């Protein structure tokens, strides 16, 4: 199991926050910023597992023998999209420092928070195994265990074109929501166009940039032929202090530019070094970013 009971209890006390997305169509747990009647009926929709049974319209069920959920105007839900980079570059690092493991745990935690809050959750593994790469949409805390089981069966494999994947997501998911992109962003083609399109669709995005400690501070020496885990390409390099210094400078520049790009477009950006405990990251870094409350 990705998350234990204690962690889940801690996570249930948290709520995901989206400042800009207000497109809820059905009742949710979060208070609406809109004004109007608080119990005014709005619509029905099909029951999905995990919905609050108290909102089941028993009359219609008795009449049609099909479960429907009543929706009200004054309460809204928040669509939560969890996009996880499943490229092989994510499968890097030993044990708990493995970026994919770390990313899975973050996705699990965020998904659990969202499900616990009654928000519809859609999880997509960008690249990787297409058969089991999505989950949801699902709603309600009852779905948490199923969600976690789905996550535990995932692995990082193959290549990811982040731009294309994000563009595809933006085109397919028209309902604006809070999108968490958990990725190392190590895609030579970049991710900016995809992110732009996604934001253009009204999504609020939070980029969780996952990097392993040895990517932030590589301890390599000698004459090496570096082989790209994801694309299989190689780069010969004679590592000396000058080259390592150049790497550090370019890394800092890249990180800075990435964060500036995200923030410049209203997207959140949180850097997750897998060296730090993932739960602390949730409780501190995401809270500091204002994504979790």
């Amino acid at each position: 199991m990705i998350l234990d009971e204690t962690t889940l209890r801690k996570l249930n006390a948290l709520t995901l926050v989206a400042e800009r997305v207000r497109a809820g169509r059905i009742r949710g747990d979060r208070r609406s910023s809109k004004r109007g009647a608080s119990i005014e009926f709005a619509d029905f929709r099909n029951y999905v597992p995990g919905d609050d049974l108290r909102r089941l319209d028993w009359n219609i069920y008795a009449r049609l023998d099909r479960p429907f959920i009543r929706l009200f105007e004054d309460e809204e839900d928040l669509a939560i999209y969890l996009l996880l980079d499943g490229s092989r570059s994510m499968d890097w690092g030993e044990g708990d420092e493995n970026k994919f493991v770390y990313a899975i745990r973050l996705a699990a935690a965020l998904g659990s928070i969202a499900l616990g809050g009654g928000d519809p959750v859609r999880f997509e593994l960008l690249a990787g195994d297409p058969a089991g790469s999505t989950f949801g949409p699902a709603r309600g805390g009852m779905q948490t265990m199923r969600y976690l089981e789905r996550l535990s069966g995932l692995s990082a494999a193959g290549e990811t074109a982040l731009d294309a994947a994000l563009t595809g997501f933006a085109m397919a998911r028209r309902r604006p929501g809070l999108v968490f992109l958990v990725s190392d962003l190590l895609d030579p083609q970049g991710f900016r166009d995809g992110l732009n399109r996604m934001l253009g669709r009204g999504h609020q995005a939070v980029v969780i940039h996952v990097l392993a400690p040895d990517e932030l501070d590589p301890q390599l020496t000698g004459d090496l032929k570096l082989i790209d885990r994801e694309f299989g390409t190689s780069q010969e390099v004679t590592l000396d202090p000058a080259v390592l210094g150049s790497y550090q400078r370019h890394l800092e520049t890249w990180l800075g530019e990435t964060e500036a790009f995200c923030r410049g477009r209203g997207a959140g950006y949180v850097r997750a070094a897998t060296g730090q405990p993932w739960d602390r990251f949730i409780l501190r870094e995401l809270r500091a970013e204002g994504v979790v409350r």
Partner: protein
Amino acid sequence: MNFLNPLGLWFLLFALPIVLLYLLKIRRKDYEISSTMLWRMALRDKQANAPWQKLRRNLLLLLQLVILSALVFAVARLAFPVPAIASGSIVLLIDGSASMRAQDVSPDRFTRAIEIAAELVRSAGSGTTTAAILAAGPPSVLFSGETDRSRAVGLLAAAEPGAGEADWAAAFSLAAGLGRQEGVEDVTFVLISDGGLPEEGLPSLPGPVEYVSVGTAGDNLAISALAARPLPAGGAAELFVRVSNYGDAERSARLTIIRNGEPLFSDLVHLRAGESGTFVFDGLPAEASRFEAGLENIQADLPLDPLPLDDSAYAVLSPPPVRSVLLVSQGNLFLERLLLLFPNLIASRTVPGEDGEIHLPAASFDLYIFDGLIPGGELPDGQLLLIDPPENPLFVVTGSTEEIEPLASTAHPLGQFVDWDPVNVYEIRTIERPAWGEPLAVSGEHPLVFIGRTGGRRVAVVAFDLHRSDLPLQIAFPILFANLFAFLAPQGIVPDPNIARPGVSVALEPPPGTLTAEITGPDGTLHNITAEAGELLFTDTARPGFYTVRLPGQTDAETAVFAVNLFSEAESRIAPAGLIRIGETTLETTRPDSVSNRELWGWLVLLALAFLMVEWLVYHRRLGKPEEIKI
């Protein structure tokens, strides 16, 4: 800095294959990482010189290139110009005489001369040859036609100075011969000396001569003479000492004389510049004695002068041994009277019997004089003087002649001072002079007087009857026979125990039949010598002092002693000469004005070896730490 073989620089092209091979041989360890994207970014600005980037900071390649460069420069004969005395082939004449032992330059003049010679050899031009002659006593060739500088320097370092005078005439003759061997066109003779060369009698050298002066000081006190002799009156002896100040300043010193290990005299002597002081000690016992004289500084802990070699002298007093002489003659009043004049000769006479047979006494004699007679059978053991000899086993007598051509001396030393002009001889024996015979006087082609060694004995022959000449009436008579007796009945094993000089061989005069001798030097070194061509020659007289000669079967009391002393004004006058004359040429001390190339290939090869070792160490250290490549 230049290259004597610039074509060798082409070998630098070997650097290209080394670099290429190195580029090809870089074995990079495969290492999988999450993404190369950031590394490509980091290396983007280095891609323009990517191949060279691989070589940067690569110590092994750098070391290999340094090794190649050092070896190529060695092959190209890297050299830098140095001032030199001579630019072509060099023949070095190194003074190894006693004065070169002076310590006015550190550590002494000879060592300094060797250093100068080594420097000249090292700076000799490429393609030239070097030769060196050491003038220490008889000259010796240290090396000739040598192109191997290291070997030449090694041979120079092994040279040792002598303790006596140098035979400069022989050294110059040898140098001239070597110079012709080296090639007259391009050979320079370099004389490294403190001067003291004879002004005359030196052969000319076939090439320019440079003179390098060694030494700075001229201050020197010396015992210039020490001699002991028995007085003619008998029963007493006297000792003569002369101390000389060869310096330019007044000097005082303590003179000490020791006789047989006991102090005889000790006092201060004061000598003005250039002055000599003499001391005579008479009334000494006429028994065998050893005298040792020494000069010391008044301040005993300071050296007296730069040349200690002449501050000591040695003398031997040895009363002449008594020799027994048997005169076999029909009667020769002249000879009998003459023999009485030699106090150390105890003469006896015998005459032939009535049957004409000669009956020699049973006792043996040191010297037998046969006057017109020869005994039948074997000749007795002992030295022989044959006067008017008939046929005998030693040489062929063909007859006699009355046709006497003018009598004349030869150049033999024993015939000197014998004036034959007034001498008239009526008849002489015609003798075929044997190979061992050295003529002292001749009459035309006929030997008149000759001497020699044969069968382990000394033989002198006078080829005419004294009664049939007027020689006994001439002054030449006692002089000639005194010389012959000195030859036939020597004073002892060492004819004169006080004339030996360092480096000069000493001829021993053992009794007939003695073929070996054991000689103990002043430092206790034992020398065993064997007779060659009937002579016992001792040559190892390098060190001044007493030498003890022991013949086979002799006791300590019977040993003979002789002394070796420097006693050379030329060597004791140590002030270095700024000018020397060789024939008609006057030479000044040379200053380097030519330019020679000093090659560095030896150092370059050493450098290459050193870097090779470093490269080996670096290579193995890298192999020993593969874990460094890990994260």
